[in-house]
């Protein structure tokens, strides 16, 4: 199927229609202007004009709190009630960095151990990507080889063009969505759409203020496990979870139980390697007992371990941690420092 275009109004109609049979997840703004991916009831709920969702799209595939199963032991017997499979979903509005981040999460949950909770949602979700409209001062995805108009990882990729969108069809899932809603899409203006996208790509490429050179960084950081640099860097860390919770590729979780009487459920909750109790053993030994070990682990994970395990970068250059860290721990500065230190 060849690429299409869709007007703004028709896109709203499409999303309104998708809501009938799917969970539709899109950037929504709360009363204080914080944008995150949330379920919408109609296209009008979307924070159109958002630059970057503060809380990334991982919250759809790996919710902050997720029920794994329920149990009931009343009557002396254990009954386990699995959670029903998720409804089909459409997630709209992922920028290229967030698309790349989902790609970085996939092998974590689809490796030797198949995580059905993640994979069920992943398989039943159509991803509609959206090209960026501007480059933020904290954006550095380009250093990771991502262009702000890249559709890789999306089923459909939308780019604003004129008074509508240029639609690239990238997977059979995306093709099926178009086929089911064919009258809303058009073949008119496809060539202009393509040109508008190319022009936007060129314009955005020139807007990057933050660039890092990643050449040799992994090799260098791999030799730095015992380097005093981590101690110096960690001094300013507060040990909060902002960077990990807002990171689109961070995926650590803790499993806990919530029960009352004979009934209960098992829950999976986001956890953070920045928290002091993250690696605390029952014996009270903690292999990452100070901020130094914890900060080092986070950056080694971003700059080395993820790559080592999955052949994919653990950072996508979205810049959320840079924008939100209350003490200005800045991964681009760290990358530059790694290149500098002896």
């Amino acid at each position, binding site marked *: 199927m060849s690429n299409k275009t869709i007007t703004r109004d028709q896109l709203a109609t499409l999303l309104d229609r998708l809501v009938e049979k799917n969970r539709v997840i899109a950037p929504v703004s709360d009363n204080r202007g914080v944008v995150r991916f949330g379920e919408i009831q109609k296209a009008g709920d979307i924070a159109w004009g958002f630059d970057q969702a503060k809380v990334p799209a991982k919250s759809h595939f790996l919710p902050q709190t997720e029920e794994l199963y329920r149990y009931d032991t009343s009557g002396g017997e254990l009954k386990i009630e699995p959670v029903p499979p998720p409804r089909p979903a459409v997630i709209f509005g992922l920028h290229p960095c967030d698309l790349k981040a989902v790609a970085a999460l996939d092998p974590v949950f689809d490796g030797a151990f198949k995580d059905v909770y993640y994979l069920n949602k992943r398989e039943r979700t159509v991803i509609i990507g959206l090209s960026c409209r501007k480059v933020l001062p904290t954006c550095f995805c380009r250093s990771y080889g991502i262009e702000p108009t890249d559709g890789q990882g999306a089923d459909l990729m939308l780019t604003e063009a004129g008074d509508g969108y240029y639609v690239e069809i990238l997977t059979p899932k995306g093709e099926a969505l178009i086929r089911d809603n064919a009258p809303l899409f058009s073949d008119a203006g496809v060539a202009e759409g393509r040109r508008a996208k190319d022009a936007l790509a060129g314009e955005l490429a020139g807007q990057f203020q933050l660039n890092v050179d990643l050449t040799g960084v992994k090799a260098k950081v791999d030799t730095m496990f015992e380097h005093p640099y981590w101690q110096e860097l960690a001094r300013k860390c507060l040990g909060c979870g*902002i960077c990990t919770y807002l990171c689109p590729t961070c995926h650590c979780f803790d499993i806990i*139980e919530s029960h009352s009487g004979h009934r209960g459920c098992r829950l999976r909750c*986001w956890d953070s390697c920045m928290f002091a109790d993250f690696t605390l053993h029952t014996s009270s030994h903690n292999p990452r007992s100070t901020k130094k070990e914890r900060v080092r682990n986070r950056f080694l994970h971003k700059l080395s371990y993820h790559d080592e395990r999955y052949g994919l970068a653990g950072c996508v250059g979205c810049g959320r941690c840079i924008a939100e860290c209350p003490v*200005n721990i800045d991964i*681009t500065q760290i990358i530059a420092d790694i290149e500098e230190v002896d």
Partner: protein
Amino acid sequence: MKTVVDNLRREAARLLAGDEVKMVIGYAAGTDAARTTPCFATTPEQAALLTWGPLCANNLVKYLLDYRFEDTRLAVVVKGCDSRAVNRLLQDLQFPRQRLVVLGVPCGGQLDRASILSEIPPGARLQDIEDTGEDLVLVTDKGRLSFPKDRFLMDKCYRCETNMPVVADFLAGEPVPSPAREGFEHTAEVDGMEALDIADKSSFWDNEFSRCLRCTACRNACPACSCKECVFEQAVPGWQQSGIIGSKVNSLPENAVFHLIRMFHVTGRCVDCGECERVCPVGIPLRLLYRKVLKDARILYGAGTPGMSTETVSPLSEFRPDDPEEFM
């Protein structure tokens, strides 16, 4: 401001060179034009990295807790609001006075990062900051950016109680005018909240708490939170988590418990430095909660803002044999 920075660097270098302290905790240039970053100078040469100005919102006193069980002497740079936290930690015996050198800075108000950020051209590098009296001017390689003080300071600054440190061993500059403004009554918003009916109050806070990410940045930045093991971080196995307060579940009830318990725990300790609200990534108006507690303590016990001196005892830390509450 230049004089203050020079004085600060000179004193820090002197303290480090003479081995009077092992480390000076202060501010250094940040990675963008609208911020600084905490700096931990351990050599006289590193003292040259120290800076000071209206981009130094962080309360550095919290970091003292990282060194409370060591035997090294430290120096820390404090503004007026931060200095109250020094007194509180001293009162709670969380840090010994003899191991501490307090470097005070006169503060004319801190710029609100969220407000100024959109005015700053991307990639601009900060070269200097000028204070014209009315305005703070950020001089960058991409132009001069003027911020009128009556619009761009942090909200807490307009309600400033002490813009000069209440405790300092060294003062890096002459007193400057307080950024406090008329019309910013200390309790105005608390009064407004109290005037709401219960349902409106409840829906206001339900909305705020349900937005919480539970990143714990508010707690971790808070100088009143000095517990080594937090009540919300008890080492309890996963299958027993429902028996404790504050599991990692993000839900309205759990989030509300987190914030309300924190509110009670910091009663009499919260110095109103505003760090909780500054660091919150989703903009929960946390100071409103804590200012309610400050107001109540003022009305019920005649207590002033904690940390104004080491002489006044926090109402909830004081023991009196004639306390009307019998179980005490």
